[in-house]
C-alpha cells in the first residue's frame, strides 16, 4: 500500500519533471548556472583571455569610488525619474482618448501602437534625422513657432525679471544630441513615442471597469473630470502599478536606444551614458569581465529594491475591486 503510493508519487514527479524539462533545463543552463558564475566572477579579476583570479570585494570597492559609475547611476536614475512619470500620465490620457467611441477609432489606435513594433535601431535612425539641428522636423517646427515661444519668454521676463535661457534656446532650435541636458530631453521624447504598448494595456484595463459605476456617477451628476478622478483612476490603479513596475525594470536596462542615437558613444560629457552601456563597455570593450559582473549584480539589487518599494507603496494606493 505504502509502496504503491510512493510509486505513484515518484511517477508524478517523474512525469512533471519530464513535461517541464524544457523550462528547468534552460533555467539551469542559461540562468541559474550563469548567475552563479556571474556572482563568482564579480569577485575576480577576469580579463577574459586569462583565467579568473579571486580578488575578494575589490571590484565592488572600485565601483564605489568610480566617477563614471556614479555618472551612469545618476543618468539612469534621472532618465527613469523623467520617463516613467511622464510616460504614465501620457499613456493613461491617451488610453482614455482612444477609448472614446468615435468613427475611425481603430485607425487612431493603430497610429499610436505602430511605433512600438518598430525596431529600436530604426527608431534611433529616424529620430537622429528628426532631431537634426538644421534639417530635422523638430527644429523646423520650433523655428516655425519661435515667435510664440519668444512672446512667452517675454511675458515670463516681465513676471520674474529675467528671460528663461532654456526657452531662448528652444526657440532657436537646440542642437539636441550634442548638448548635455538636451540630449537627455531628446531621449525622453523618443521614449514617449514608444508608449503604445502601455496604452494597449491601459485600454484593456479601461474595458474592465464596470459600466454601472459610470452610470451611477452620472446619475449623481458627476462631471466628466470627476468621473475620471473617482471612477476611471481607481479602476485603473492596479494596471498602473503593473505598468510602472514593468517600466522600472525596462528603464534601468535601457541600452539600444541611446546606443543607436549616440553611435555607441557616451554622449556629450557622458550625459547619455547609461548603466547597461557602461556595463557593456566594461565587458566587451575593456574586457573587464569581473568589474562588469559586479555592476550586473548591483543592477539586479537596485531593480529588485525599487520594484519592492513601488509594490509596497502601490499596494496602499491601489484599489482592488471586490477586495
Amino acid at each position, binding site marked *: 500500500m505504502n509502496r504503491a503510493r510512493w510509486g505513484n508519487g515518484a511517477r508524478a514527479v517523474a512525469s512533471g519533471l519530464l513535461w517541464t524539462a524544457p523550462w528547468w533545463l534552460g533555467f539551469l543552463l542559461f540562468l541559474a548556472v550563469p548567475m552563479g558564475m556571474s556572482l563568482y566572477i564579480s569577485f575576480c579579476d577576469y580579463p577574459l583571455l586569462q583565467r579568473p583570479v579571486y580578488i575578494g570585494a575589490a571590484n565592488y570597492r572600485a565601483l564605489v569610488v568610480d566617477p563614471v559609475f556614479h555618472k551612469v547611476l545618476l543618468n539612469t536614475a534621472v532618465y527613469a525619474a523623467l520617463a516613467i512619470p511622464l510616460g504614465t500620465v501620457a499613456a493613461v490620457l491617451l488610453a482614455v482618448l482612444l477609448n472614446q467611441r468615435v468613427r475611425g477609432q481603430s485607425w*487612431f489606435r493603430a497610429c*499610436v501602437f505602430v511605433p512600438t513594433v518598430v525596431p529600436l535601431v530604426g527608431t534611433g535612425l529616424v529620430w537622429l534625422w528628426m532631431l537634426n539641428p538644421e534639417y530635422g522636423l523638430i527644429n523646423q517646427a520650433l523655428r516655425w513657432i519661435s515667435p510664440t515661444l519668444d512672446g512667452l519668454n517675454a511675458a515670463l521676463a516681465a513676471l520674474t525679471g529675467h528671460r528663461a535661457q532654456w526657452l531662448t534656446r528652444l526657440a532657436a532650435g537646440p542642437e539636441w544630441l550634442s548638448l548635455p541636458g538636451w540630449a537627455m530631453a531628446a531621449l525622453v521624447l523618443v521614449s514617449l513615442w514608444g508608449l503604445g504598448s502601455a496604452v494597449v494595456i491601459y485600454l484593456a484595463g479601461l474595458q474592465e471597469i464596470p459600466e454601472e459605476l459610470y452610470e451611477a456617477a452620472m446619475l449623481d451628476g458627476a462631471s466628466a473630470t470627476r468621473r475620471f478622478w473617482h471612477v476611471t483612476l481607481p479602476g485603473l490603479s492596479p494596471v498602473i502599478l503593473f505598468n510602472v513596475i514593468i517600466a522600472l525594470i525596462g528603464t534601468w536596462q535601457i541600452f539600444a536606444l541611446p546606443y543607436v542615437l549616440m553611435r555607441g558613444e557616451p554622449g556629450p560629457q557622458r550625459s547619455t551614458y547609461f548603466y547597461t552601456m557602461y556595463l557593456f563597455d566594461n565587458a566587451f570593450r575593456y574586457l573587464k569581465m569581473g568589474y562588469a559582473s559586479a555592476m550586473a549584480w548591483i543592477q539586479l539589487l537596485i531593480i529588485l529594491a525599487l520594484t519592492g518599494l513601488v509594490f509596497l507603496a502601490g499596494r496602499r494606493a491601489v484599489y482592488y475591486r471586490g477586495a
Partner: protein
Amino acid sequence: MSGKSAANLTGTAFGRAVVYALLVLVAALFALPLVWMICVSLKPPTEVLQPNFWPSQPSLAAYSEIIRSQHFDFLLYARNTLIILALSLVGVLLSSSIAAYGFARVPFPGRGLVFGVCLATMMIPFPVIMVPTYVLFKHLGWIGTFRPLWVPAWFGAAFNIFLLRQFFMQIPRELEESAMLDGCTRWGCFWRIMLPLSKPALAVVALFHCLAVWNDLIGPLIYLTHQDQFTLALGLQFLQSKAGDTPWNQLMAAASLVVLPVLLLFFLAQRTFVRGIATAGLKG
C-alpha cells in the same frame, strides 16, 4: 444611447469635436516620424536637405543604391535574420507549449512553487547573465555563429510559458478526460487536442517572438563577429555608425527596408498583437 456612451468624456456635439480634433492631432504626431522616413527615402539626392515634406518627384533610386552598396547587404542580412528566426521560432513554440502544458495539466508535488520560480525569472535583467553566458558560449566555440541566438529559444521562455499556461487552463478538462478514457496518452492529448485548440495563443507567442528576433540589437552585437553574419538590426546600426558619409535618403531607405516588413506584419496581425499585450498586462 445609454450603455457604453456613459464612459465617454462628454456627450455634446462640441465635446465630440474636441475629442476628434485631439485624436487627429495625436495620431498625426505618432505617425509623423514614419511617414517622414518614407518621404525622405523617396527623395532624389538633391532634395534631401530641402525643407519640403513631400518629395516633388518620388523615386526608388535611394533603395536600389543602398541595396547595391557594400555597407548594407540587405538580402544577406535578411537571409541571416530569417534563418535565426526560423530556427528559434520552432524551438520557442515547441518548448514553451510543452512546459506550459506541464504546469497547467500534469499534477506533481511542488508544481506551484516551481511555476512561481519560473515567473520570477522574468524579473532578472539580461545584463546580469550577459557576461557568464558569453563566457559559456565562448567555451563552446559558439561566438561568431548563429547558435547563441537560437539554441536558448529551445528551452522555453518564462513569459511564453505563462501566456500559454493561462490559455491551456481555460480549455475544459473534460475533453482530455474523455480522450484518455478512450486510451489517448498525455502526449496525444497535448498534441492532438490542446495544441490545435490553442492556435490563438500560439499566434501571440509566434508574433512576439518574430518581433523580438527582428528587433534584437544587443544579442547579435555581442555574438556575431563578421559582417556577412549580421542581422538586419545589426546591419542597420553598422551602416549608421560606420558609414558616416551615406546620404540621408539612402539611410532612410535602409531604415524603411528594415521597418516596413514589421509594419506589414503589424497591420496583418493587429488583433493578435493587441490581444497578446492586453492579456499579458491584465493577468500578470
